[in-house]
């Protein structure tokens, strides 16, 4: 063995081959990002594309401070002070997701459980759901504007409409997949109708519900951004649309990057672990939908 292979084997032994491979993989993954950022900087330097098409990286960074210029500080930002443009828009988007989740998820679960337990109910709810899902959330925006006007009601409606049906379908499928003996088991121990929901259907459908929540976040977030652009008066979607109208490309870039980061982070660090946790904890096999 040469000195180099000896050295490499020594390192592999110390750190562990798997971990080294992981680190290597991570490094490789950053290469294209670095390349893109490099090209971006070069563009600023050589001016291949004007700033109106591709704003300098520093401008995108600067846009954060520009948007927050007259924001008195962190506390004020949390209180949604009028001058804290960026944080206000972030909070209104995120807030709407949370609000829609708070309303849509329990509703979807409730109806999903009912439909899963009762063929007649599901027989009538299912076609509505299929049609609602086919008319993609975005296609509801014009009608929602007619009904609710431009503003938060419309965006919330669009979000709810998206979230509700996804959760509904996933819960229904989850409930239907719960083995009948589990229900009978609880019934024969003196469990009431409500007990079977609480002890069997709800936990049994949980992995499926959480998968539904993941999908909701994905589809809902997209629908929200679109709704904010077309029929909203605040939020990140609204911000990038208005900024684009006013040719403030750096704010558009900033908004787009924030939109995907918020989604990526909440999916990766919130829902994926949650999904894994329920599935692994209960040893339920995950079925791709």
């Amino acid at each position, binding site marked *: 063995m040469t000195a180099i292979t000896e050295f490499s084997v020594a390192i592999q032994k110390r750190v562990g081959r798997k971990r080294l491979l992981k680190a290597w993989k991570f490094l490789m993954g950053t290469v294209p990002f670095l390349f893109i950022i490099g090209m971006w900087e070069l563009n600023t330097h050589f001016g291949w594309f004007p700033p109106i098409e591709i704003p300098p990286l520093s401008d995108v960074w600067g846009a954060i401070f520009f948007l927050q210029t007259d924001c008195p500080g962190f506390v004020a930002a949390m209180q949604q002070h009028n001058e804290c443009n960026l944080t206000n828009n972030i909070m209104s988007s995120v807030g709407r997701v949370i609000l829609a989740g708070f309303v849509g998820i329990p509703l979807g679960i409730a109806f999903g459980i009912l439909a899963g337990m009762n063929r007649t109910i599901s027989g009538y709810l299912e076609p509505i759901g299929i049609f609602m899902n086919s008319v993609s959330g975005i296609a509801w925006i014009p009608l929602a504007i007619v009904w609710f006007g431009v503003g938060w009601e419309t965006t919330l409606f669009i979000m709810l409409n998206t979230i509700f049906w996804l959760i509904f379908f996933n819960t229904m499928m989850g409930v239907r997949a719960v*083995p009948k*003996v*589990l229900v009978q*088991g609880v*019934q*024969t121990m*003196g469990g009431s109708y409500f*007990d079977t929901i609480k002890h069997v259907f709800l936990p049994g459908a949980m992995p499926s519900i959480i998968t539904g929540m993941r999908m909701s976040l994905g589809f809902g977030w997209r629908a929200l951004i679109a709704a904010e652009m077309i029929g909203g008066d605040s939020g990140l979607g609204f911000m990038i649309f208005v900024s684009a109208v006013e040719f403030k490309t750096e704010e558009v870039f900033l908004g787009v990057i924030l939109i995907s980061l918020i989604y990526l982070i909440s999916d990766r660090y919130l829902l994926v672990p949650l999904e894994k946790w329920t599935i692994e904890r*209960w*040893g339920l096999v995950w079925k791709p939908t």
Partner: protein
Amino acid sequence: MSGEAKLIIQDLCHHYPDEYTGESVHALEGINLQVYENEFVAIVGPSGCGKTTLLNIVAGLLPYREGRAMVDGNEIHGPGPDRGVVFQEHAILPWRSVARNIGHGLELQRVPKEETRRRVQEYIDLVGLSGFEDRYPHELSGGMKQRVAVARTLCADPVIMLMDEPFAAVDAQTRITLQDELNRIVMATRKTILFITHSVEEAAFLGDRCIVFSRRPGQIKTEIKIDIPREERVWKDMADNPKFTEARDKILRLVRQEVTSDDEH
């Protein structure tokens, strides 16, 4: 039989409606059966003869129209904690730990926490699962899961325990162990049990009385008393027990008749 009849079935018939043709499947015909206190009744019969149907009716999971079925003098209407059921597949909940599965019946009946804990521990020890209290079902073997199911039913202290081929899904070796254990538990708890099985050996080994069903529509063909004291019922001694082999062979012959005539059919 000593004591009063815990379970009384009179002239019970059952028809299933057919989903497609609207015609009905005749599953049970004129069943008359009584199970007395502390008695262990085993039912055997060819596949599809209506054993599960009978058990489901007794468990209250299947409504019936013709005949009567009473537990402890009360007509059966729907499931209730007076009849505990052990199903073939593991009907224990994957999202509850062993202890919480076993205590589930008590929880549903709102028994105080302290009392629940005490009784759960008692049954965990009884079925030999000490140390596994906080495990989840997917971490257990098939035999252990069935032990949890038995303990769960016992813990709710039913008037009668209904078991539908509880050991059919475990391997032969484990099955023998579980049978020995069930025997020990029956001795310890003196439960009244209605036990359904495919296995003639199992019926002869466990039952005080064995009821042989005919082909569909299920009717009671014969019943055989098995007079072996529970203390003597241990598998390692069974091969030499003439009472056992005799009962077993007799049941086997009766069941064979049914199956063969079924084939001719």
